[in-house]
C-alpha cells in the first residue's frame, strides 16, 4: 500500500522541532528511524497530517557518561548500542539486548529513543530501561522534565510524553564491579518480537543480591516489573528453591493472549525466562543469554 498524503518537515534544531510538534494546526508525528512508524503509515494504520523529521538533530546523537550516568541521545541507533564499546562497558544490559532487536538493516536505522517512544510492549529496550531505572528527558516549548522509566510506560503504545513533548535523551546509571545483569528472550525466530522476555539488573553483595529489578516484556500492555519476585530474590542467597519461589509469583500476573501464542504459553515462557535470569544474576559466570 501507499501511505496517505502527509506533509513532511525536517527540523533544523531542537527548538524548531518543538515548535513544529507544538503546532495545533495538524496532527503530527515525529519521524526518527521510521522502522515502526513508516510501516504504520504504509499500512494506513496511522495517517498523521504532518511528519517532523528529527534525523538531522546532531545533539540527539550524544552517547557519553555524565556524572555517573550514561546519557543516550534519542537518535542513537540500535546498531551503535550493540557495538559501541562504551555501552558494553557501562551498560552491558543494553549491549546484550540489542542483538535481539530485529535485524541488522533495522538496527542500522532504528533509534533508541524511537523504540522507547513507540512503547511496543514486546520490544526489548523499554524493558531494559525499566530494569536499569532509567530517566527519560522530555522537552517541550515550555521546558524540560525528567520522567523515570517506572512512570514512562503507561499503556499499549502509550507513554507519559505529552503530544507537544519530544523525547530528547535517556540516562542510565553506569554499571559497577558489583552490577549483575541478565537478558533472556523467547521468540519464534531470531529477531522477532518477544513472546516473553526479561531484562534483569541487580547488585551483588556477597552471596546476596540487592537492588533486584526484573522487567518482564512481551506479556502485557507494557513492560512490567516483577517486584514480588525481586523481593524474594533479595531475601536470601539465591538457591534453586528461592528461584522457584520467585517464579511462582508470576502465577498471578496478567498475561495477554494472542492467536500466535496463548496466555498459558506466554506465562510459562515468562516463568522460564525469570528462572534463567535469576540464576544468571546469581551465577553470572554460568549465565547463557541465548
Amino acid at each position: 500500500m501507499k501511505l496517505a498524503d502527509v506533509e513532511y518537515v525536517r527540523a533544523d534544531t531542537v527548538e524548531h522541532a518543538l515548535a513544529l510538534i507544538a503546532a495545533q494546526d495538524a496532527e503530527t508525528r515525529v519521524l526518527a528511524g521510521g522502522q515502526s512508524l513508516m510501516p504504520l503509515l504504509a499500512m494506513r494504520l496511522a495517517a498523521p497530517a504532518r511528519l517532523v523529521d528529527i534525523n538531522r538533530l546532531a545533539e540527539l546523537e550524544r552517547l557519553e557518561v555524565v556524572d555517573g550516568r550514561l546519557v543516550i541521545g534519542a537518535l542513537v541507533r540500535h546498531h551503535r548500542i550493540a557495538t559501541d564499546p562504551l555501552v558494553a562497558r557501562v551498560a552491558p544490559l543494553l549491549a546484550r539486548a540489542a542483538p535481539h532487536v530485529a535485524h541488522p538493516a533495522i538496527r542500522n536505522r532504528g533509534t533508541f529513543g524511537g523504540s522507547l517512544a513507540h512503547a511496543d510492549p514486546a520490544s526489548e529496550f523499554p524493558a531494559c530501561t525499566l530494569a536499569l531505572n532509567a530517566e527519560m528527558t522530555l522537552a517541550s516549548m515550555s521546558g524540560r522534565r525528567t520522567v523515570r522509566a517506572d512512570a514512562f510506560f503507561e499503556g499499549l503504545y502509550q507513554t507519559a510524553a505529552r503530544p507537544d513533548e519530544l523525547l530528547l535523551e535517556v540516562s542510565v546509571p553506569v554499571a559497577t564491579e558489583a552490577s549483575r545483569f541478565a537478558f533472556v528472550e523467547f521468540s519464534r525466530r531470531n529477531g522477532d518480537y518477544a513472546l516473553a522476555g526479561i531484562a534483569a539488573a541487580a547488585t551483588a553483595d556477597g552471596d546476596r543480591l540487592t537492588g533486584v529489578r526484573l522487567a518482564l516484556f512481551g506479556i502485557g500492555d507494557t513492560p512490567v516489573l516483577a517486584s514480588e519476585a525481586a523481593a524474594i530474590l533479595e531475601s536470601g542467597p539465591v538457591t534453586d528453591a528461592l528461584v522457584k519461589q520467585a517464579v511462582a509469583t508470576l502465577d498471578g500476573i496478567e498475561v495477554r493472549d494472542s492467536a500466535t501464542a496463548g496466555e498459558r504459553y506466554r506465562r510459562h515462557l515468562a516463568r522460564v525466562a525469570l528462572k534463567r535470569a535469576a540464576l544468571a544474576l546469581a551465577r553470572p559466570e554460568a549465565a547463557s543469554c541465548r
Partner: protein
Amino acid sequence: MTSSPALPAPIGERVPHRRTRRLAHGRGRYVGDIKIPGMLHGTFVRCPHAHARIDAIDMKAAKSLPGVVAVLTSADIAKVCKPWRGVHGLFPSLNAPLQHALAIDTARWSGEPVALVVATSRSIAEDAAGLVDVEYTPLPAVADPESARDGTTKIHPEFGTNVCLAASHESGDVDAAFTGAATVAAETFRFGRHTGVPLEPRGLIAEFDPTERRLTVHHSHQCPHQMQNDFAVLLDLPEHRVRVIAPDVGGGFGIKQQLYGDEIAVCAASMLLGRPVAWFADRLESFTADIHAREHVVQGRVALSAHGDILAFEVDDLHAIGPYSQFPRSSAGEGRAVLTQTGAPYRFDALRARATAVFQNKGMSGHYRGVGQPIACAVTELLLDKAARKAGLDPIDVRRRNMVRSADLPWRAPTGVVYPRLAFEECFATLEAHVDLVGLRRDCADARKNGRLRGLGLACFVEQTSRGSGFYGAGGVAVSSRDGCTLRLEPNGAVRCLSSITEQGQGTETGVLQVIAAAVGVPLDSVDILTGDTATSFHGGGTWGSRCMAIGGEAAWRAGRALRAEILTIAAHLLQADSTALDIRYGVVVDAGGAARMTLAEVGAVGHFRPHDLPGLNPQLVASASYGPDTPFRAGCGIQLAVVEIDPDSGMVRLDRFVVVHECGLVVNPLLVDEQIRGGVVQGIGAALLEELLYDSDGQLLNGSMADYLLPMAPELCDIELLHAHAAAQGGDDLGIAGVGEAGTTGASAAVLCAVNDALFARGVSIAQIPCTPERVLTALGVI
C-alpha cells in the same frame, strides 16, 4: 545421474544462474518496473467478511476524487469478462461453482475482491478505495474442514453440500490385511493451511488496444501460455491477439500458476477504459488474495506383519479448499496426490483411500509447491514410525525392508500408479555411505538418557514430475504438458534461443542454455535465451509440476541437435567434406582428427549473406523442436533425514542436521539442482515448524502479515547437506532428466515431524500436527 559419456560439457557443470548477476546489480525488470504511457493504477476494495451478501455499493465519493478514472463493480466487469467454473473432465462429479472476477451479490471469503478502483496513481486509487462504501449483510461462515463437511451452512446452496469432490480408491483385501496384521498403527493428522510467499507479489499490466482488439499483458506469472488461453476465452478475444509476457518474476511456488479474479478484472478494466491498467498486489493483501494450500485432516492407519512387512494403508483425507474450485486446473489435484502417493516408496498389497475436498469461507486454495505430495509423505512416514515403535522394530529397518527395489520395477502400486523407475536402493546406499545412521541414533538415545529431547527422523519420498497430458489435457483443461524451443544461428555464429519454459528464479534458463551449448557444440556464452513471451515461443506449459528442465530441456536438446545437423551440412558443403566426419566443438567445425576447419561465424556469414555459395541448399539457420512426455510422469525419489533437539523448557525445536539424498536422472547443473532442492526443503521445514495461516471460527485471518506469518529464515536453519544417488538411466532416447522443483518440499516436513516425534517418544507423547509450534510441543509434553 546417468553420467552418459555421450553428453558433452557444459552439461553436468556447476554454472551459476545467468540471471543472477543482472538481478543482483539491480538490473532486473519486474512487472512493477514497467511504465507504459497513459498507464493507470488499480486497487481493490475487498470484502472484510468471510461470508456476506453485498447489498449496495456507494461509489459517489470515490468517483468524485480527483484522479479517479473509474470505480468498477462486478456488473461492469461482466460486460467484457465471462465467469468461469473450475471443472475437470476426469472428475465429472466435481462441484465447480460459477466464479466471477469480482464478487457478485455474495462474497465468500474475507479478501474477495468486490470493486476495482482505477486512478492515475496507486495512492489516489487507495484513497478512493477507502471512500467506497459497501453495505454488507454478514452471513454465517464455514471455517474449519469438519464443519464444512458436516455442518448445515451451505456456501453454494445450489449443490446442497459443501463437498466439492469426493474421490476414492480401493485395491486388494484391505480388511483382511488389517485383521491379519501383527501391528496396526492409526493416527489423525492435522496440517496447517499455508501459502507460498514469493519475494515479488503478484502483479500485472494489461494493455488493450481497441483498434485491433489486441490485449498485451505483462504478467508476473509462471504459465503465460495458459493465461493467454484463459484471457482469450474469458474475455472473448482471438487467442492470437492476446500476448502474455512474463518479465523477470521474483518467485512463484505455484502462487502464480492460476487465473485470479483480481488479475482478469485488471484486463477487463483495460478493455473497458481503453488504457493500460496496472495492479501490483500489496504484501498484506497477498495473504488473503493469493492461493493457500494444504489444509488437511487425514485419518490414516497402516498394517504391518510380524516381520515388519507393510500389508496395507488406509487413509481418509479431508481437504478444505476455500470457496471455489480453482481455475483452470480445478481443485482435484491436491486430494488426488494424497490418494495416489500414499505409501509411494514402499511395497504393499492393499489400499483404501478416500479424499474429500470441501468448500469453506477462507481464501482460495491452489497448487503450492508439492501440491498434495508432502501430505501423503508425512502421513506415510509418521504411520510407519508409529507402527515400527509399536512393534518394537527399528523404523529405519522397516523402511529398508519395504522400499521398492529395482527388482520390483516397473512397480505397480496399489494406488494404481505404475512407477517405471525408482532408486531407493541406491539412495539408501548413498545415505549410509555419508551418514553414520547407527552413530546418529546412539547420539540421540544418549542425549535422551540425559533428559534431553533429541530425535532423528527419516522420510523416503517420491516426487512425480514432468507430467504428460493424461491429467489436464485428458480432462479438458487447456494446460499444455509440452514445451518448445526455437534456435537461430546468428551471423556471428552465436545461437539465439526462444523457449517456452519460464523462469521465476530456479535457474532453468541456465540449464537449458547448457543443454543447447552441449547439443550444438558452442560455448555457453554464445547462446542467448528469451523466455516468458507467448508471442515468440511455442505454446508451452511453463512452470508447474517440476517440469521445465525435463521437458523444455529435452525440446532444447532436440532443437540443438537439429541446428547442429544443418550447420554440419552447410560446413560439409563448403568444405566439400562428409558431414558425418565433422563435428562442432566450442563453436568451431572440426574434422575427425579434431583439426579446426571453420568457425560457426563463417557458417553464419555464408548462410545469411552469401547463400549463393550454397546453391540448392536454401539454408534455414533455424531449428525448432517441441517435446512432451507420453508417460503420466517421471519420478524423482530420495530420502530426507533430520536431527532435531527440543528445548523442554520453551518447546522450541532446533534443527541440528538435515540431509537430502536425491535421485533425479541426469543432473544438468548440480549447483542449481542442489539450490532448488534446498529451497524446497526450507519451505517444507517452514511447514513443519513455523508456517500456518490461522483463522478464527468466523473465517477471519488472524496472522496475515510478515510479522505474524512466520517464514523460515537463515538463523533458524542448519546446513542442508545434499547427496545425489546415481541410478541407471531410464532408457529411451531422451536425456533422462526428472524434475527437482518440488522434491525438497515433498519430504522435508515429514522428516522434521518424524524427528520431533522421535525426540518426544522418550516421554511417551507424540504430535500429529504441523506446524509443530513450541506451544503444541509443550502441550503434548503436558508442560502447559
